[in-house]
């Protein structure tokens, strides 16, 4: 759906990373973890396009200022990378936004009882937080979070508050182990042979490494992709990724926005990237 929204709060949670809470109609509460929103700063034609963000959290709080006495909200986590996100970072409480939400397909939560293993980095942690919030209701959840430095490892406390067991690695060793989080994941998987499923969201090299691990160990794995996109609804065809059997003769491009952003790792072609 398309709606006008107002900023409730916009906080820098780590240098260059912001967490924004915005108003939303109650129907947003039906959104599933892994779905995303397209955000436009009101009226602007430069930047022209909306920006896609995974849903970090949503809910409702009591307020005297709405008819029903409750205000629905949704939250995104974003990093300032260009003009659009810089403009977002400058917004304050009460500023206007235009939102399309929820878009795309969410994660399949999988059977209760199996362990859930989340792997993410940077703003890739955003949809994983919403996912963890749902998963902890029925399953043991572990999070493997990585980044270049400790400042890229976001909201770890929030995950821990949900009861998620967290493992952290940074390239420079400023938080957790020094090295790649996928190396920590590999060591963990070597010691734990129980039934489990992987959920990953983060930079492409991290997703490629997770997909390789999942394939080698035959563990079910869903990945959530990030892509440049203009529309978010399958019209511009700007955000496509090659499906498993894609070739020039038998085209099988999938839209990250409409067919994803969550895919089973086996649905995609990883080698060609």
């Amino acid at each position: 759906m398309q709606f006008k929204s107002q900023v409730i709060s916009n906080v820098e949670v780590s240098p260059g990373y912001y967490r924004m809470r915005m108003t939303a109609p109650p129907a947003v509460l039906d959104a599933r973890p892994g779905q995303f929103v397209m955000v436009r700063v009101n009226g602007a034609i430069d930047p022209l396009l909306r920006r896609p963000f995974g849903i970090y959290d949503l809910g409702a709080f009591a307020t005297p200022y709405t008819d029903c006495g409750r205000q629905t909200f949704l939250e995104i986590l974003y990093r300032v990378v260009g003009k659009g996100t810089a403009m977002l970072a400058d917004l304050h409480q009460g500023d206007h936004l235009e939102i399309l939400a929820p878009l795309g397909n969410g994660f399949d939560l999988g059977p209760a009882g199996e362990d859930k293993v989340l792997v993410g980095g940077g703003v890739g942690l955003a949809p994983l937080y919403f996912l963890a919030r749902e998963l902890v209701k029925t399953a043991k959840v572990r999070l493997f979070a990585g980044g270049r430095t400790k400042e890229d490892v976001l909201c770890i406390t929030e995950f821990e508050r949900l009861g998620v067991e967290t493992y952290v690695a940074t390239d420079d060793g400023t938080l957790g182990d020094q090295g790649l989080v996928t190396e920590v994941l590999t060591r963990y998987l070597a010691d734990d042979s129980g039934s489990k499923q992987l959920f990953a969201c983060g930079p492409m090299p991290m997703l490629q490494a997770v997909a390789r691990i999942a394939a080698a160990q035959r563990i079910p794995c869903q990945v959530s992709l990030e892509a440049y996109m203009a529309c978010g609804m399958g019209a511009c065809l700007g955000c496509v990724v090659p499906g498993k059997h894609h070739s020039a003769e038998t085209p099988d491009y999938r839209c990250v926005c409409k067919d994803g952003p969550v895919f089973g790792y086996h649905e995609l072609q990883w080698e060609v990237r």
Partner: protein
Amino acid sequence: MATKPNMSVDIAGIKLRNPVMTASGTFGYGREFADYLDLERIGAMITKGLSLKPKAGNPTPRIVETPGGMLNAIGLQNVGIDAFIEEKLPFLRTVDTPVIVNLYGNSLEEYGELAERIDAIPEVAGIEVNISCPNVKQGGIVFGTDPAAAYEVVKLVRDSTIKPLIVKLSPNVTDIVAMARACVDAGAEALSLINTLTGMAIDLAKRRPILANVTGGLSGPAIKPVALRMVWQVSKAVDVPLIGIGGIMNATDALEFILAGATAVQVGTANFLNPSAAQEIAEGMELWLVENGVADVNELIGSLRA
């Protein structure tokens, strides 16, 4: 109390309830936008450009934002004519709005064959021939920039179908009027202009082009002045109805094209940032007519005081 103005226009025999169409490649196959606007409140829908066989399109990155616009190099990814008929047409059939098929061939023969295939589909109200996609290396660009080649391809399509025939012009030419005349001489009953302007964007840090295709087509508000100028020039030179395209974001933009000589307009890039744009623009145009005491949108066509 003002009476409702007449908003309907006629393009090559296709009756539109209002002059606002959705541009090829920006509106999927219609269904994608059904949740965001009333498809029966817009003038017509133009499909994503169809080819005979499914087409993969270009590698990514395919799009990049630029000041007031965007570059795309999708490379005409499409499902092909057979899948269009099987998968896309059944939905379009349920919508009471003219569907115009945009078609593209890799060769002269393919244009003719496609036109024949589409001619046999009763639900298709008309054909828009794409002779001007800037992102595909085979064929298209030649037809779109050489009046003699354009004449040849339009003539072949004309001889292959009795459907209303629109030709979409490329702005990447020295003389848009010569192109327009060639297409009309070959039997085009309407012209849509402009397609995207060829451009490129560079990533300085990587010292590389941003688009995998290196160059792409520029669209959005950035190209509106160029599009207005071309519509105005062509309207002075040919007698067929024109469909103005280029950076239309709101009713004001759309009405400017009508004043410059367009009978209808196509909304393109605006659909990406506001999926209800086409309907809002049609309603905004009607409101402007009411407020300015204009009884019929047709009175405004080419009414520029110049």
